[in-house]
């Protein structure tokens, strides 16, 4: 780490400590007198938010530190939670094992009973799950292909009929309606727009013939439909990103610095 980076981080931490101390001493941040994890959480969240947004000015050590902390924390949290929920709670049924002083196999049996499953219904998927970790070994790495094959086989087998049904057949319904008699009476204009949109867009993606002559104009219309769709999508994306920014600004200026009431 460069000396300037270390200096930046130290100055930032000192500044944050000074601001937080002032906020607590002036009772702008609630502190219950004891070790208040909730308020401490607000302080840490505020510091990390500022550190991450500092990247908007330019790339810096504060941003990189916060980014690495986020990656490390989320991976660690995910790992521990999945271990705890899947293995300790569901498969090993730790609660019952501790309460009744059960051994390893007995705990698994108890877990299966809670899940209303046969013991093999837990052991086989459990073993398959463990096989995924053989990826870390060069010698036994091939074993990891077995659980992946099972997952892919199941996923493809189950999803093909449901996807065709939900994303193709049912999706055709709004297009195959009586265009002259809409739901509110009269011509069904929305249906006409949908029909034109679907046909012209499909035509645009028809590459077996050059887009000339009779195909040219409809394929152009298809491009316009695509552009409108991209525009709507981009507009929603801008709105979504602004919402996240508003959430953070609201947090900083309402919960941490009580400037907004």
């Amino acid at each position, binding site marked *: 780490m460069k000396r300037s980076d270390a200096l930046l981080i130290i100055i930032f931490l000192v500044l944050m400590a000074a601001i937080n101390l002032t906020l607590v001493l002036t009772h702008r941040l609630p502190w219950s007198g004891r070790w208040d994890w*909730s308020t401490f959480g607000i302080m840490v969240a505020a510091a990390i938010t500022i550190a991450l947004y500092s990247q*908007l000015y330019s790339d810096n050590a504060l941003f990189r530190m916060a980014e690495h902390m986020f990656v490390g924390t989320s991976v660690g949290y995910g790992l521990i939670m999945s271990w705890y929920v899947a293995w300790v709670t569901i498969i090993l049924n730790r609660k019952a094992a501790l309460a009744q002083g059960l051994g390893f196999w007995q705990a698994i049996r108890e877990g299966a009973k809670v899940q209303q499953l046969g013991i093999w219904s837990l052991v086989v998927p459990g073993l398959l799950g463990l096989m995924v970790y053989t990826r870390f070994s060069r010698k036994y790495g091939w074993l990891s292909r077995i659980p992946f094959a099972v997952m892919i086989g199941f996923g493809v087998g189950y999803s093909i009929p449901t996807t065709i*049904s939900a994303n193709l057949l049912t*999706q055709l319904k709004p297009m195959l309606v009586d265009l002259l008699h809409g739901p509110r009476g009269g011509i069904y204009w929305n249906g006409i727009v*949908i029909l034109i949109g679907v046909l012209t867009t499909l035509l645009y993606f028809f590459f077996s013939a050059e887009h000339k002559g009779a195909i040219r104009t409809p394929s152009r219309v298809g491009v316009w439909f695509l552009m409108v769709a991209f525009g709507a999508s981009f507009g929603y994306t801008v709105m979504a990103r602004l919402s996240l920014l*508003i*959430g953070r600004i609201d947090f900083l200026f309402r919960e941490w610095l009580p400037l907004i*009431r």
Partner: protein
Amino acid sequence: MKRDLSIFFNIDRRIIFLFVFLTILLPMVFPFSLPIRATKHVRKVYEAVDKAAAEGRPILLAFEFDPTARAELEPAAVAILRQIFASGGKAVITGVLTGMSLHEQIIADCAQEYGAVYGRDYVYLGYQPGGPALIINMGQDFVSAYPRDAYGTDVRTMDATRNVLTLRDFGYVMAFSAGLGSILNWINLGQGPYSLSLGATVTGVIAPDLYNYLDSGQLTGMLGGLVGAAQYEQLLKENGVYLMRRFAAPDFVSARLPALCRRLSATDRTALEQFVWNRLEAKQQDAVRATVELNYDQLSRDEKRILAAALNEALEREDLVPATDLERLRLTEEIRALLQKPGPTMQKGRILRRLYVEDLWGPLVRKAHSDAQAVRWMTPQSVTHLVLIAAIVVGNACYFADQYRHKRGRSQTLQREEQ
């Protein structure tokens, strides 16, 4: 002219960031409201939730989001939970691995606001591994997918989940999705095979991809991003759901607590205040007094919760507020109309008692309740959108003006060369 236009093409991005930051911050510091009207798709979700609650059928809320999508999905989650609890419905909630703490906090706060009881009015099932396979499992046998709730209680022993055998037993299913994959799983594996009445609350990024599912009827309604949540909050306001809120601890934390404590420790307490005061233990009463005397907060978070719970309990008691006091309340025309409106979400007595407390303790209590988060956030959002639209229009005008100028310059040069 050339120099003037070049300014627009070479703006430092940091100036744009600062500009966006200010357009968000200023409407927050100097708030004003803009009209919000619920769309057809949002209204349909509201009606579906109300219908399921009125029929007494549980509503499944699949909270498939974590803190990264909090700003967009939390307001909608809070709004729907408030509606369910206010209308006496039952909520069954599932979670994802990295969002469980957030979900528990949201659920606990909403339940406290409306006095919902765990097990009877709502159940939190937490996370179960499986992803898409879990939806299939829930559709075939719900109890084998979630035999126990997040705290280890058998789902067959709780009122909210006792009669749920498959996904079909839910009156309505609402998926809160931060990613397109999870909502498509619900459509493909849940709605299709089991003919569920399914709604979606999604982030703005994926909302445009779901309109075709609304047209086909696979989704009954949708709340897309923050604007969807704001529209839903507007519906809650129109139907008086906020007036049925009780006094929850999180509001007390941000409220001016010392003044409330002053009322409680005063000698001329009303019956309602006396009831609350009697519910506090001696050391909690000391903390209330100390908060008044020292003029700052001496109550711990737990003590605030106890105080809020006591006040909530008081609002449930009809005998604590004299009927004559309730009659004397000055009600606005809007509230009068609301109280006369029939419907499953109305609980007239509780609304009146709440208004009585607001009248008793003045603007202090009203201020403590931030009714609609998304509505509040929509003002900066709308202002920023307008500014961005203006910037895009100006930017495009400058671009075309620049192009025209170049074209004209080139043709003039050619003419000169020809001459």
